[in-house]
């Protein structure tokens, strides 16, 4: 039940006095309440659970992870090329 997925905020609007957003999940668009992530901007990714954004995805932290992986993939490539030799 704690399933939450990242989606891109494509529009921010007001509904019954609540900050809401249209969220794009790779082509499927649904609305989510942004009251708990008031800092969310159009173009940013939010983690959404049961119609509520519970965090704005920290792209800097995700970037650090990807950098670490690039380093790991380089290691793999080096291992493969040294095995080939």
């Amino acid at each position: 039940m704690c399933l939450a997925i990242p989606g891109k905020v494509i529009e921010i609007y007001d509904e019954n006095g609540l900050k809401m957003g249209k969220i794009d999940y790779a082509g499927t668009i649904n609305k989510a309440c942004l009251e708990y992530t008031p800092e969310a901007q159009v173009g940013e990714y939010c983690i959404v659970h049961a119609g509520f954004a519970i965090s704005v995805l920290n792209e800097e932290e995700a970037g650090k992870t990807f950098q670490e992986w690039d380093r790991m993939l380089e290691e793999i490539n080096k291992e493969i090329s040294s095995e080939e030799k």
Partner: protein
Amino acid sequence: MKYLNEFRNPEIAKKYLDKIHKITTKEWNIMEICGGQTHSIMKYGIQEMLPKKVNLVHGPGCPVCVTPLEQLDKAISIASRSDVIFTSFGDMLRVPGSEKDLLSVKAEGGDVRVVYSPLGAVQIAQENPDKEIVFFAVGFETTAPGNAMAVHQAKKRGLKNFSVLVSHVLVPPAVEVILSSPINKVQGFLAAGHVCTVMGYQEYIPIAEKYKVPFIVTGFEPIDIIEGIYQCVKQLEEGKSEVVNQYSRSVSAKGNNNAQNIVTEVFDTKPRKWRGIGEIPGSGFGLTKQYSDFDAETKFGVEEYKAEEPAECIAGLVLQGVNKPNECPAFGKSCTPEHPLGATMVSTEGACSAYYRYRNIKTS
């Protein structure tokens, strides 16, 4: 999908798995707390790719599974009333109560509706002023902010025909019950990433220190889980017991303050009974005095319901990581997703259901 597909890269997964194989020298039991993580572990065959010495045990983090029988009986009783529109997340509809489930109530003519967001239930209340709208507020800390917002909004909009049947549970008290049990075998935890997105992870620091166990705040994609296991095994091998955040793209140490503020306004902690485990002090939420008018239990007079769980079901031991689902004599025989004995076989996040669904998956 961006920020999902990257975390399913088999090359990276293999690299982390190699690292786990390289550092593992002793036998370790690691519990993933959340049912969503259990589901990923079974779906991607993660246990089979780990060293034999690393054993994953499955935790109680499936709110559908731990909702006690009497809460379901209360829901079924309220939903059967002709003046009620009963709203719920879809997961709860097939969970058996003592005699039937909510889906049967719907089949018998009850107005039972599935909502995607708790705010959907508030909307139904606004559109149906001559009906009583009840929302089944089930969940862990992840779901509490949304459910709290629904009650907060109902009060703000002056809706007298809206109430909630609260069955909220909290992770840290359950973790302490597991760790203090004489039959405990868990040595390290993957903490639930979305619970920590809301609550942060500072609550786990004193628990890690007291019981000398590491906690890795972990996400839900296969690489998240494999990296979480790597960090946990690394700490166990080094004799450390720290709280580490693997899921930093979503989780901060303090969590989401905006969400916590509304949760604290609407809910306060109270003892809760967990299906298969029993009552745990301070392990759940109830409505605060300020919001007590929205309590469906008092509104419909169902507070005193009691129910006994079927003796054949060992879900309580599965939820505490003592037994694996396929060690139950009823598993796949008298207990299947079509004819479940316990909620762990009903919910898609339940450990028994995950074992049953992915029982034929073999990983090469």
